[in-house]
C-alpha cells in the first residue's frame, strides 16, 4: 500500500511526513505537483507549508496543479486523502472539504503544542482513536481559523482550548464519506519521543490502515 506526498513549490513539511509514515512502516513517495498520474498510489497526503507563497489566498493557486486532478479522482473513488495545515487549506479551496480558512483570531502565528479531543471516529484520520481521547499535537499556522457557513463540514478533532477562533473549535474536518480529512495541527511532528509527543502516530496509523483497506477492496 503506497502513499503519495504531493510537493508544491513552497511546501516545507513533506520530508517530515515521509519520515513519519516510513517510521510507521508505510511505503511513501514524494510526487511533484505537476505529476498527473497517481494511479500507483492507494492514498495521498498534502503536506504543510506555504504552497506558491500563499499568494492570493492560502491554497488558491495550488488547487489548479495537475496532481490535484488526481487527488480529486482518488477522493471520489473513496481513497484516503489527508491535508495537513496548508494541505487542508488546499482541500478547502478545491471544494473537497467544506469551508475556508482565515487568519487566527488574535492575528498571531501559533507555534506550540495544542491538546485536541477526538469527537468523531468515522474518518481515515481518526478511525483508530476512541471518542473523547485527548492528543497533544503541535499547531503551526497563521491562517488556521476554519469557517464553514454551509455547516456541512464534519468536525473529527476539536481543540480542547480555543487557540485560533476556528468554528466549533475544529482542528480536523472530514467530508461526508470520511475518506477526505483536513487537519490543522501536525500529526507528523508528534511521532517520536524526541519531538515531545507520539500522539500523532495514532492518527497516521489510522490513515495507513485506511490505505490498506482501499488496497484490499481494489484487489478483491
Amino acid at each position, binding site marked *: 500500500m503506497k502513499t503519495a506526498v504531493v510537493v508544491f513549490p513552497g511546501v516545507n513539511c513533506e520530508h517530515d511526513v515521509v519520515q513519519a509514515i516510513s517510521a510507521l512502516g508505510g511505503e511513501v513517495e514524494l510526487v511533484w505537483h505537476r505529476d498527473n498520474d497517481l494511479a500507483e498510489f492507494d492514498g495521498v497526503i498534502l503536506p504543510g507549508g506555504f504552497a506558491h507563497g500563499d499568494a*492570493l489566498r492560502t491554497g*488558491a*493557486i495550488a488547487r489548479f496543479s495537475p496532481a490535484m486532478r488526481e487527488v480529486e479522482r482518488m477522493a471520489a473513488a473513496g481513497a484516503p486523502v489527508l491535508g495537513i495545515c496548508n494541505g487542508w487549506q488546499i482541500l478547502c479551496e478545491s471544494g473537497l472539504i467544506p*469551508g*475556508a480558512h482565515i487568519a*487566527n483570531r*488574535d492575528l498571531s502565528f501559533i507555534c506550540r503544542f495544542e491538546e485536541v479531543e477526538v469527537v468523531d471516529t468515522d474518518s481515515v484520520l481518526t478511525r483508530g482513536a476512541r471518542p473523547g481521547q485527548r492528543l497533544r499535537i503541535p499547531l503551526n499556522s497563521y491562517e488556521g*481559523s476554519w469557517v*464553514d457557513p454551509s455547516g456541512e463540514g464534519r468536525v473529527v478533532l476539536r481543540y480542547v482550548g480555543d487557540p485560533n477562533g476556528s468554528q466549533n473549535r475544529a482542528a480536523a474536518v472530514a467530508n461526508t464519506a470520511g475518506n477526505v480529512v483536513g487537519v490543522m495541527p501536525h500529526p507528523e511532528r508528534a511521532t517520536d519521543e524526541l519531538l515531545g509527543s507520539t500522539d500523532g502516530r495514532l492518527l497516521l496509523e489510522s490513515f495507513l490502515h485506511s490505505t490498506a483497506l482501499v488496497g484490499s477492496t481494489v484487489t478483491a
Partner: protein
Amino acid sequence: MKVTVTIDRRPEIADPEGTTVKRALHELGFSEATSVRMDRVIHMDVDGDDPDEVKARVEDMCRQLLTNPVLEDFAVEVES
C-alpha cells in the same frame, strides 16, 4: 482596458485584522470609526475592445481564481 476588482469579505465572516485596526483607531481618538473591514482591490490591464465582454471575462476570473465564494463577494468595474 483598466479594470478594478473590489473583493469584500462577506459580512458574516470575521475580519480579525479589521477589528485590530478599528481598536487602534479608537485608541488614537478616532472613535467615530465604528466599523473597519480590510477588503481588497485588484487593478488590472485587460486586452479587449468591448467593455461588457471584458467585464464578463474578469467576472469569470473572479469565480475561478480571484475570489473564494465561501469568504468573499466581488464587484468588477471596467474603465472605458
